[in-house]
């Protein structure tokens, strides 16, 4: 039986109503980056651990008479290692190429894209933007994962370009690991709910920090009778998310521009509240307020889930150091801070009970005939399309 290569060609990435038109060369660029990132993850990343064990750690021990105590000591030593330097420079370069490629595709057709989004969004009661909304500084002032202008920059009226760039290039960063519509995390979450909480028949669902909605849609589709509220602070993301959802015929979501620290919804009004890859892009102060909101918004018996990479607690210093890479070198300044927090203590502090908390796992669910199964033995430290599910019942 023949099968598609891994990573698959970009031409298999799904289209929706606000997909930018890509040329042969655009697709070839994303193909190149998917191959490059796969190569780095498979062939270069593991060599860092080898360099550490064989060279860097023994030299450190010789000099200090002990092993490095924490990831900071590991980093200071590894930064002098030529292999780590080369891998890091290549990974940073790959990320910058990905941004430039995505922006090239999107910005050269920005007027057409914004028009298509505007047509899908016109007069919709399910898109609620607030022109007076003040974006919190921890989002406004950071260009997350090296996106120039971050999530909120608007280069034209009713701009969706920041979101369109995010969407068009995830394929390259994850080497296709999130599937045809970049929705592997959403399918993972929907599958997790079906398996682990079959009794939960949510009437109202809340997604905090929905972004462009790629992880939300499979959950909304899994519960077609539910009313889904999705909030985000960035207008470009919300415009794009609403247009994208509508073009894919998902109509049970209302997108609201709001801050997850202060959600404009009544107490106890949701059966399910979740976040996907969201907490690590908020400040430590904000996380506490957001966790507090999840408790306020859930009805008794309701379920709260957060999809994130594993917390640092208990991981060896070398693995912490590798997982710290994006925080320091890929403009994810809150990544480490969030992964060092004691989430259970935070949840307990706002009123959740410790015995109702759990940590579980979820892996991207994609069309395996095309996108292949996630390789279990390839660890790309923070980039892998599998996550921890941090959950609690109220």
């Amino acid at each position: 039986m023949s099968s598609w290569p891994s990573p698959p060609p970009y031409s298999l990435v799904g289209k929706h109503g606000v997909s930018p038109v890509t040329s042969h060369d655009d697709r070839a660029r994303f193909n190149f980056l998917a191959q490059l990132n796969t190569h780095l993850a498979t062939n270069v990343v593991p060599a860092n651990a080898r360099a550490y064990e064989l060279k860097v750690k023994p030299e450190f021990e010789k000099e200090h008479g002990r092993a490095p105590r924490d990831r900071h000591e590991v980093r200071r030593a590894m930064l002098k290692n030529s292999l780590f330097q080369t891998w890091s420079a290549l990974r940073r370069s790959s990320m910058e190429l990905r941004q430039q490629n995505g922006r090239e595709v999107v910005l050269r057709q920005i007027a057409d894209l914004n028009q298509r989004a505007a047509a899908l969004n016109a007069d919709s009661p399910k898109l609620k933007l607030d022109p007076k909304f003040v974006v919190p500084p921890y989002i406004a002032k950071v260009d997350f994962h090296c996106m120039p202008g971050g999530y909120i920059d608007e280069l034209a009226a009713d701009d969706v370009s920041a979101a369109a760039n995010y969407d068009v290039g995830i394929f390259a960063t994850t080497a296709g690991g999130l599937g045809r519509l970049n929705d592997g995390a959403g399918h993972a979450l929907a599958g997790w709910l079906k398996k682990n909480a079959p009794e939960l028949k949510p009437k109202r669902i809340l997604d905090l920090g929905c972004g462009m909605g790629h992880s939300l849609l499979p959950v909304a589709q899994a519960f077609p009778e539910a009313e889904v509220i999705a909030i985000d602070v960035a207008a470009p993301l919300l415009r794009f998310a609403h247009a994208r959802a509508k073009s894919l015929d998902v109509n049970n979501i209302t997108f609201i521009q709001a801050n997850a620290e202060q959600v404009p919804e009544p107490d106890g009004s949701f059966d399910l509240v979740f976040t996907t890859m969201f907490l690590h892009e908020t400040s430590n102060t904000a996380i506490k307020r957001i966790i507090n909101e999840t408790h306020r918004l859930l009805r008794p018996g309701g379920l709260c889930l957060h999809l994130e990479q594993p917390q640092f607690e208990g991981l060896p210093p070398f693995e912490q150091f590798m997982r710290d890479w994006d925080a320091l070198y890929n403009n994810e300044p809150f990544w480490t801070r969030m992964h060092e927090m004691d989430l259970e203590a935070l949840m307990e502090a706002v009123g959740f009970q410790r015995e109702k908390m759990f940590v579980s796992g979820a892996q991207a669910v994609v069309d395996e005939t095309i996108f292949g199964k996630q390789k279990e033995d390839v660890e790309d430290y923070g980039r892998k399309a599998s996550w921890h599910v941090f959950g609690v019942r109220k």
Partner: protein
Amino acid sequence: MSVQAPLDYIPLTGAKPRGKRPYFFDDPAVERVLAITMAVAQEVAVLRERLDTVERLLEKHGGLTRAEIDAYEPDQASATERAEWSRMYIARVLRIVQQEIEALNASPDNNYDLDAKADELGRT
């Protein structure tokens, strides 16, 4: 009705993100050359894929001759498309130089230290 000038997107594609760029090699010049090399490497891959497409289409639909390729002169529209491609190509290969210049010209707040910024924003 006011006429809006079309957006010159090419300098925007390689814009520098806020935050100080990390350099990993002892000499930053090595990093600069590597970044340029990787962009060229990408474009070689793009050319190779395009050539492969041409070969496969030719194989399927029948041919053209090398003489035709040698004799080809672009018309105005093709020449414009090719010039635009070249402009983007140069901008891509020299992205790191653009960003170093932007870093040089940027306000101190644009080049903030990410860790210090997270401390500051963590209190917001």
